[in-house]
């Protein structure tokens, strides 16, 4: 019997679970594929988090700091889980360090899977010219620019006219048919930040539906009422680089009018999709993937329950979700792991 919990993935959900378990008095084995903790928000240098523009460090900093320094958390960076045997209360897992190839064995009482997501690679969909034309960027890349406080095109000049294209790699049968749930809110947040940073810029949001659910709605209202951001209902058929500017072709479905307007910069609201880490972890741990490649919980309304006793799920490896939900799921999964610990060892 062991008092350790394995957490796979060092992003928001995994970190939150690790911190809660360590606080609870359990030992945590935190395995992160990359060389850095913090997941997507840190890797892509998110400037702030929707809906309240909280700086990313404020949310992620304490979690990372705790895990890096706590004696209760054993962090394995640049490592992946390679094998898992046993059953609830007593799993034996193999962790391989990708850099030196060494493998270590550990006994854990339960496993929390929090392998997160990848941003959709827009170069897959040729109509947006991403990766081929300059000044076509993803919302993930714009975050870093906003963080630096320097939003400029490839020629070093700030854009005068920017289009955000929603639902890139989302809600499309040829790429990903699901809704990524957060990109509306994130794009709007960025549009506001862009206005704040550049001042003299016209921002156009080309959307099909605005899905700023819950309290995120305030972002949408503010962007329109306080910042004068323009909304055009429609979907873009093609972005064409003229050698100078970007010609965006679409339909304004509210007036049934074709528009072909030149922009200095196009920001693609790239969606959320399961990454290779999720697939790998699911394979090792014997978990089922759903038709889209996310991990399928036993019951779709109960995210934490993976369907295998002693293995729990948290965050965007299950479905697209916001960062506040992800953090809560981390805590929820920690609770499940704690229940296992209570049954098997006295803490």
């Amino acid at each position, binding site marked *: 019997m062991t008092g350790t919990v394995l957490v796979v993935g060092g992003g928001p959900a995994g970190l939150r679970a690790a911190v809660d378990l360590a606080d609870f008095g359990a030992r945590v084995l935190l395995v992160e594929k990359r060389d850095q903790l913090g997941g997507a928000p840190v890797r892509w240098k998110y400037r702030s988090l929707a809906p309240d523009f909280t700086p990313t460090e404020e949310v992620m900093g304490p979690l990372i700091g705790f895990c890096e320094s706590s004696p209760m958390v054993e962090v394995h960076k640049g490592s992946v889980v390679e094998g898992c045997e046993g059953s609830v209360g007593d799993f034996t897992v193999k962790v391989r360090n990708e850099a030196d190839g060494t493998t270590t064995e550990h006994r854990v009482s339960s496993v929390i899977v929090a392998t997160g997501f990848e941003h959709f690679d827009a170069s897959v969909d040729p109509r947006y010219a991403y990766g081929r034309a300059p000044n076509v960027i993803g919302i993930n890349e714009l975050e870093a620019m906003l963080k630096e406080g320097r939003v400029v095109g490839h020629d070093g000049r700030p854009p005068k006219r920017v289009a955000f294209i929603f639902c890139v790699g989302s809600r499309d049968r040829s790429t990903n048919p699901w809704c990524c749930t957060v990109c509306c809110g994130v794009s709007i947040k960025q549009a506001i930040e862009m206005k704040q940073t550049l001042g003299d810029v016209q921002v156009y949001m080309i959307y099909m539906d605005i899905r700023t659910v819950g309290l995120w709605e305030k972002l949408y209202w503010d962007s*329109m*009422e306080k910042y004068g951001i323009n909304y055009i209902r429609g979907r873009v058929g093609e972005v064409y680089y003229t050698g100078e500017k970007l010609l965006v072709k679409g339909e304004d479905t509210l*007036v049934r009018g074709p*528009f072909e307007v030149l922009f200095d910069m196009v920001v693609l609201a790239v969606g959320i999709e399961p990454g290779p880490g999720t697939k790998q972890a699911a394979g090792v741990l014997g978990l089922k993937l759903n038709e889209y490649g996310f991990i399928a919980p036993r019951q779709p309304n109960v995210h934490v329950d993976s369907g295998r006793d002693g293995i729990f799920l948290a965050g965007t490896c299950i479905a697209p979700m916001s960062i506040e939900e992800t953090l809560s799921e981390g805590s929820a999964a920690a609770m499940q792991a704690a229940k296992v610990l209570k049954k098997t060892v006295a803490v």
Partner: protein
Amino acid sequence: MAAEERKKEEKGRFIAERRYVDDQRIVEPEKLEAGGVDMSGRWGTLVLPRTIEEFDHSLFEGVKRLPRGGKVGKCWQCGNCTAVCPVAHANPMFNPRYLIHIVRMGYQAEIEKVKDYVYLCSGCGLCSAACPKDVDPQGVMIALSIAFKSGRAKGGR
């Protein structure tokens, strides 16, 4: 006048989908000739494209500065105003939601087409009661009618 009306009706009459082409974009030359070949009338007809190549917010900014037009920027095109508008039911060419949108984006050709209908507004205020964003469409219609009349509808280009 009657002759003019007739001419307007005959213009582009060989186009099967004629009802869906704006009159003003059909160029039908009364006389067109090249190298001795007569290409007048339908043989020389051109239809100008209707692609929107520019967004122009100048008129919209003007409306914002007019009394009762100040809240127009809040409009999110839900259509509640048009849904409750008794005038719109009688004559669908008057559509407050639509008017606000085309003015916001500066779709000049559309504005030219429907701007005169703005004066149909009866001022009943149902729309302003129904608007979830407090845009005051009734007031905006007044502001729009002032903007159109003062010739600002043509501005910006």
